[in-house]
């Protein structure tokens, strides 16, 4: 299902940081697959959305990257959460929990 831009706007950074927190170091292709698997295919990121988002997070200092050899033997740019990113993720986590708690009451859903 394609979500509206407004709904996704606040969530994309959280999703990427969460994936990096869960998986440690990943490169772009791995991350896109991981997002699909972890969300049971609910969220599908476009490549042209994910990479600019990663660059933005890197320029903010929330994410770090380095070029390393992947299991395939090819060189890939791996991304990982920085200490600052971890701190921001914890804050966003709390925020998202409260947000979903509030939304649940409106949706009358038990998740």
């Amino acid at each position, binding site marked *: 299902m394609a979500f509206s831009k407004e709904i996704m706007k606040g969530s994309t950074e959280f999703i990427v940081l969460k994936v990096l927190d869960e998986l440690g170091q990943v490169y772009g*292709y791995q991350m896109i697959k991981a997002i699909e698997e972890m969300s049971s295919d609910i969220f599908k990121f476009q490549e042209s959305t994910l*990479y*600019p988002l990663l660059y933005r997070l890197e320029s903010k200092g929330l994410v770090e990257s380095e070029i390393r050899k992947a299991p395939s033997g090819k060189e890939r740019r791996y991304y990982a959460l920085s200490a600052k990113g971890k701190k921001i993720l914890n804050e966003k986590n709390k925020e998202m929990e409260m947000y979903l708690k509030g939304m649940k009451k409106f949706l009358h859903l038990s998740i």
Partner: protein
Amino acid sequence: MNLKDFFGKIKTKLQKNDYSERFLQELKDHAEDATQEKIFKGNSPKAARATTLKNLGDPEKIAKNYNVMTHGGSLFIMYLEGLLFGILSIPLYLNSQNFAFLFPIEPFEIVEKIIGYLVLALVIIGGSYILYSFAFSRYFVAGANRRSPYWLAYLAVLFAPPLIMYFVTLGLNWGRSPFAVNPLMTLMYFVPTLTMAFITYQRNHQGIVTMAERSISKISKNKKWIIILPIYFLAASLIKFLLASEVSINSPLTIPLIPLYVFEFFIQILGGLFFIMAPNQLSLIGSYWIIALLLSLLSLLALLKIGQAYHQKYQGKAVQWPLAPLCFLGLTIPLLFFAPLRETAIHWNVPAENISARIEKAESWPFYHFVQYNDSDHGFEFSYGIFTSSFNSAIAKNDFIIEQTPGDSFSLSNIKTVKSYDLKKLSEESDKKNSPSSPLFQTKPAATQPKAMLKLPNHFSCQADEQNPAYRAFKKDSDHLASEATAQIAIPCQQLTYDQKLIYSTQEPLFLHNLLLSQDQKWALLTLGQSWFNPKEVYFVEL
């Protein structure tokens, strides 16, 4: 479509920025991994590639999506910056020209202090806003298309006319200007500003192109651009033009000069800081040291910030160059260390030594250039009085006393050549204590010195171009100067001769405030200045 065409199409539509090459590479890696995975699952390489490209989508949409994700901030911020900078500077500028503009009553000491704080607050607020707007990271993330002429046209309108007029006016008034015209001052403004503008051009260009295209093709539907564009030019350019018009050097035209406007802006910063420091008993040189050290510290912090960014780039990480620190350094480094001296361009025909420069260098090194740059008749300068031993027979012959205001007094003694002499700081108390015939208290002429034009010793004569605007203004005022002056009045002197031998000549207007001869008539001490009321330089010459 094959892979080469696919990525080639993306590349042509992609906005060029720090990330575009990296994005293309990572997308290629992504396509390679996706294709490999499909081959592992049993697809043929050709089918795997085709499916991968189909899943990636339309290359134009990919590029467009990327461009949208990395586009710069609202251009309205750029208009606001120009407007705010210009508006904030108006009261500062007008106040510097006419004190009564803000305070029409006679200023008392407390009013001066309040004005000082007001000036400082305005400058800090304005300066902070500008630094913040340039540091705003979203503002500089956009890509650029270097082929469009719109941005170049804007830059040309903004910078070329004042730059051309500056040098045209310089040429028209060469040798006659009352200001020490300084090309380096122009560079101090233009180099960092142009650098900033071109970097902004690289980052934000696409937005301006889009805006211009919209205004042409959708002019009936999107009329706001007709209003926004002219306001942009007005905000960024015209206010600065108007502010600088008052301080343009003698020009038959009324085109203003942006470099001098920037010069006044910095003087206002210093003015505000001095107003705070001076009432707290700090000496003038002490105040200069504090400000120079503060500027040096801020420059060091800016350098560290730039070093960090460079280190990140060196490690292959994406980096946002800290533009605000870069521009700050572009202004402070010349201001602190390379601003040219305010010495007049005097051509000496006899051996001569600039004693005042020697004194000030010793007091303000390594910030001598900074002190000189600001030592410019704005109230933050040194002036000098000179005396000879003739008033005090206890002093050795051929010695001189040089009194710096504000500052110390010095004795010039044991003279062998203009380069070989003793220059000793005199302490009021110690000289009073140790020497009954203290030079300070017994050599100074009485306060009832005749208030008259300087009378040159025999055999000396001065010539000046009486058509020079500075001299014409002086001549016009000289009648009431004689009745109101509390000290000797300087005389215009572009050429000084002694027994028909040329001592010095200069093209700039120059006033001779005092000339003293040693008892053996071998040496002379002169005080010179660009105005008739402020003897700013002391020269020691061999006749």
